């Protein structure tokens, strides 16, 4: 069987869960806003790096329909839990996307307890994107939310109480990965576009709501609704045009995002150049040489990596450098892996003090964990950070060795490597650590795949456009139902840009109108 390593792990994890005696769990749904369990969901379950086989999972009542539509199996479904080699085609154009294995798991004997299907396709990004988009174009099928597969399994009583604790962490990890992925996508033209739609929709909704709740007693002109009519119409056209645009806006940043960060003059640009084996960034002994983000695409151990060098973190002297520092912090926030570069000559000469020094250094360079729990934060940090102690050639050998021992024994610090970009001493060891870290990140199905994020965005935009047509349908005879359409559209855009609450809408109402009763 063509199964990639992470997938095997995943499967074995599932079978372990299954073998556990089912604990008496009350059937409860776990909250996500407005996710409907009757939808059929899909997700890329394997990593998004270069891998031989990618696994796409589908779960929900429409799974058999999905299987039929994607494989041309019009009459019969494959025998349950048996791999079958099929041509996988686009459900609408019938264009051949790939030849791969398909599996059919009728409920309740599946991980989620629902009807499920799996597609094992070749791991290239083009194939994966095509398959995900094909799935997303089917009616009633949408990309999964963070942790949704596991959540459904829980819902179906497939997980016992002991697994729920793990589920929390899983959802946390997935939410984080998706958040980072979404941040990357939102950071740019596309993000501004979505934000703009969201704020315009908010205004539309606020104005319809104002008209509903206050127009009988207040001076809210009928013109308000006419403005909403044209706004809604314009939004609809714009979103539709965007969805139909084959260029899809910006190129997705593929690969593991590795960001180099640290104080000025620690040697961040030298590290970039060393890793690139070419002078991609200007290096100089003058602090603050790098002001903007410098990017380079690399192949580390066969995995695609996007390496970014950032401005040194200090209170900048001029506005250009301040902007550079802001961008640097933003990059670190979005990074899968951060290489924190330290000037070894700045390390305390007493090795026992090194861990405390580095702890302080990290707290300046890294964004504070949003959770606020120091335990949780430290754990997350050591997974996603490598300390690079540069300029090791300038530190006495004895101090270096004792410091290394000290750091190995101290808990809560990410792995640290002494390295000299100048002499390349220690480069081999560092590369080995980096490579294994990148491999883990790439193979982790939890790290958000750009194509999946994109598919999710498309799905929400499509539903948003649909909801807006409800506005026009009811505009003239039932404003409550028309408003419901705008509210639904906003909910869907809000799934991309952030949720919008009733209070926020009321704030706009009171800002824009004099409500006097």
């Amino acid at each position, binding site marked *: 069987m063509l199964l990639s390593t992470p997938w095997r792990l995943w499967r074995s994890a599932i079978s372990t869960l299954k073998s556990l005696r089912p604990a008496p769990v009350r059937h409860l749904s776990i909250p996500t806003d407005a996710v409907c369990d009757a939808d059929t969901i899909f997700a890329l379950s394997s990593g998004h790096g270069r891998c031989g086989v990618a696994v796409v999972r589908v779960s929900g009542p429409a799974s058999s329909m999905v299987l039929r539509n994607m494989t041309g199996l019009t009459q019969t479904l494959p025998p349950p839990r048996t791999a079958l080699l099929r041509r996988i085609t686009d459900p609408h154009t019938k264009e051949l996307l790939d030849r791969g294995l398909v599996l059919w798991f009728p409920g309740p004997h599946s991980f989620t307890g629902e009807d499920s299907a799996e597609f094992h396709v070749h791991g290239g990004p083009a194939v994966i994107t095509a398959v995900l988009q094909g799935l997303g174009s089917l009616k009633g099928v949408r990309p999964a939310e963070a942790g949704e597969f596991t959540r459904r399994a829980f819902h179906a009583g497939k997980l016992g109480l002991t697994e729920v604790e793990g589920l929390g962490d899983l959802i946390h990890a997935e939410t984080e990965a998706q958040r980072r992925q979404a941040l990357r996508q939102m950071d740019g033209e596309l993000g501004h576009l979505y934000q703009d739609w969201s704020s315009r929709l908010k205004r539309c909704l606020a104005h319809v709501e104002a008209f509903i*709740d206050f127009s009988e007693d207040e001076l809210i002109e009928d013109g308000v609704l006419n403005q909403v009519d044209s706004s809604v119409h314009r939004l609809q056209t714009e979103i539709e045009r965007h969805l139909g645009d084959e260029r899809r806006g910006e190129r997705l940043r593929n690969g593991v995002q590795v960001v180099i960060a640290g104080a000025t003059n620690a040697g961040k640009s030298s590290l970039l150049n060393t890793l690139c084996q070419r002078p991609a960034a200007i290096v100089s002994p003058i602090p603050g040489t790098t002001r903007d983000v410098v990017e380079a695409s690399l192949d580390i151990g066969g995995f695609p990596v996007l390496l970014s060098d950032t401005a040194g973190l200090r209170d900048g002297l001029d506005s250009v450098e301040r902007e550079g520092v802001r961008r640097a912090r933003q990059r670190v926030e979005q990074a899968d892996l951060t290489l924190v570069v330290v000037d070894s000559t700045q390390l305390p000469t007493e090795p026992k003090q090194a861990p405390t020094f580095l702890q302080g250094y990290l707290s300046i360079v890294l964004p504070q964990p*949003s959770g606020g729990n120091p335990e949780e934060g430290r754990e997350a940090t050591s997974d996603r950070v490598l300390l690079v102690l540069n300029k090791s050639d300038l530190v006495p050998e004895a101090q270096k060795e004792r410091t290394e021992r000290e750091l190995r024994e101290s808990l809560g610090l990410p792995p640290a490597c002494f390295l000299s970009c100048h002499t390349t001493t220690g480069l081999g060891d560092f590369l080995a650590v980096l490579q294994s870290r990148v491999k883990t990140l790439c193979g982790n199905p939890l790290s958000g795949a750009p194509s999946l994020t994109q598919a999710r965005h498309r799905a929400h935009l499509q539903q948003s456009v649909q909801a807006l047509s409800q506005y026009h349908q009811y505009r003239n005879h039932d404003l409550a139902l028309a408003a*419901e359409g705008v509210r639904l559209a906003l909910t869907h855009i809000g799934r991309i840009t952030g949720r919008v609450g009733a209070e926020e809408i009321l704030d706009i109402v009171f800002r824009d109108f004099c409500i006097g009763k």
Partner: protein
Amino acid sequence: MLARKLPLILHNLPWSVSSRAGSDLARRHYDVIVVGGGHAGTEAAAAAARVGAETLLITQKIATIGALSCNPSLGGVGKGHLVRELDALDGLCGRAGDWAGVHFSILNRSKGPAVWGPRAQLDRERYRQFIQSELLSTPRLTVLEGSVEELLVSQSNPNEPGHHRVTGICLVNGSQPILSSSVVLTTGTFLSGSLFMGQTTTPGGRIGDAPSCSGLSHTLRETLGLRVGRLKTGTPPRIVKESVELSLVQIQTPDKEPTPFSFLNTHTHCKPEEQLPCYLTHTTPGVERVVRESLHLNCHIQQDSKGPRYCPSIESRVLRFPGRQHQVWLEPEGLTSDLLYPQGLTMTMPPDLQLRLLREIPALHRAEIRTPGYGVHYDFVCPTQLNPSLQVKSTQGLFLAGQINGTTGYEEAAAQGLWAGVNAARAALSLPLLALCRTQSYIGVLIDDLVGRGVTEPYRMFTSRAEFRTSLRPDNADIRLTPRGFEEVGCVSLRRYKEAVRVRDSLQEGLAALKSVTLSSTRWREKLGNISLSESRNGSLNGLDLLQYKDVSFEMLAAIFPEHLSPYLEFSQRLNIEAVYRPHCEKQSREIERVQEEESLSLPPDMDYLSLPTSLSSEVRELLDRVRPNTLGAATRIPGMTPAAIVHLLHYVLRTAQRNQHTGQRVKAACKP
């Protein structure tokens, strides 16, 4: 024995109660004591008595029970929903409105039945009489005139959460305390209230009434340690009707056919042709000038406590939106009253300036003021310290309702009053406390918003606050609430229950009958004449499909299929609405079920979030510790909660629940459909 029986006789002789008030004949132990006779207090007392509790209502003046302190109107958009729901739970205000209304209209008539706003102008005198006679003829309810000096509390019952337990109250000049199992405080704006007019400030909650005792406020803050905040509100001057130039105003006529608030009433007390009009006029630049010139004489406006953004004084309207015309409604105060109420002209400047301001409006150029407007500052208890049952979390048996919880409006107060009364009675009778879910009622939305999010300004109901607005309509409040009110809550009479069940069953049958009548679209067009049915729909259409079209009504279909449909003509309007809304409600129903499932899982009120042995971030812990959500659903609505935190919480609660399967929860979330 005599002492026990006597009160039962007394409440059948309404006015004798007050004369005996405070005498030793009054019983000294009640199930429920309600303090305050406003909208919250009257609904609370009546509801507690309906549930079966021996109830005592204490008010400063029996004569002001049921008084409308501010506007002479009831209902409106969002508020009308609350009135219908109160009526569905057998509350007083819907029927009182039908009795006292002198101008009925459905607001938002053109905007869809989900947001229709039943509203009425009221005759103040009739409203008060209705409420008083209802209360004074309610079995198990005693009314006492007096001022509460102090709330009596003792050690808490260790088997239940809370640090204190209420044991009764002490009256001013009362020789002995009056004991009770539960106390409902509905003191409105009287909690450390002060009145503002121009530069004068006097203690009090309403003009003409003595201020409440500071003892109560002290107990709440000092003994019980409750957090309080300060809010402000105001009321306009009352204008002598004769002095208004009615030729200079627009006349606003009521609906020709008044629609009653109550599901029990088929018509209103006031005959359609006897209804009174309202009048509409506008402010002028002169009004703005007077406001600006009098600012330095206006203490109320200079205070920085929070007033409502949506019921602002004319001062704040003018300051926030200068250079505009603002609407002023002149509303009748009653059939025999010689006063008009200028809605939109709440003001707190000195009386002579109030007169100057009014006279800047052409229709009021020779207006006379009977009583000037004034502002009120008052304390409210931060409502996040309450359970959804409206019981104070830290104090067993103490319930709060109305403005004391930071709301504004009669309907909002009445809604909380009813629910607090129900639970105060249930607590006294050792029945589990109940919560109303936001998926099922506006009352549920109101309470959930209050206890879950708290308030930063006086809270008023808007339809946009209800996320399931299409399902929570004024037309179906009886079906949503009455059966549960009878079967689970115990606050609904048998008569009302039977009627609601009849309606519910008939509607179901009617919908089934509509579904059963099918014709091809060509045949429908032949029968109905000029109806534009969408051409794309081939095959047969049933009656429900047809009602989706704006131009088709149930009556038209009943004329075509009289044998099938005419039995349901009585419900034609409701069937029209049901048919249109059904598909939308079904879309929402799954989401509603999800919310209800989460609401059915209660979180222990005494949970120690700060040291809970599960991996929650300290930020989330502090959030949970501060808000103390009652259910998992409430926890998900706290801004800043993460999905992962919810799962951890769920895990912990399930594990604990398994461990203590036999120790039943006290707050039961009454959410099951």
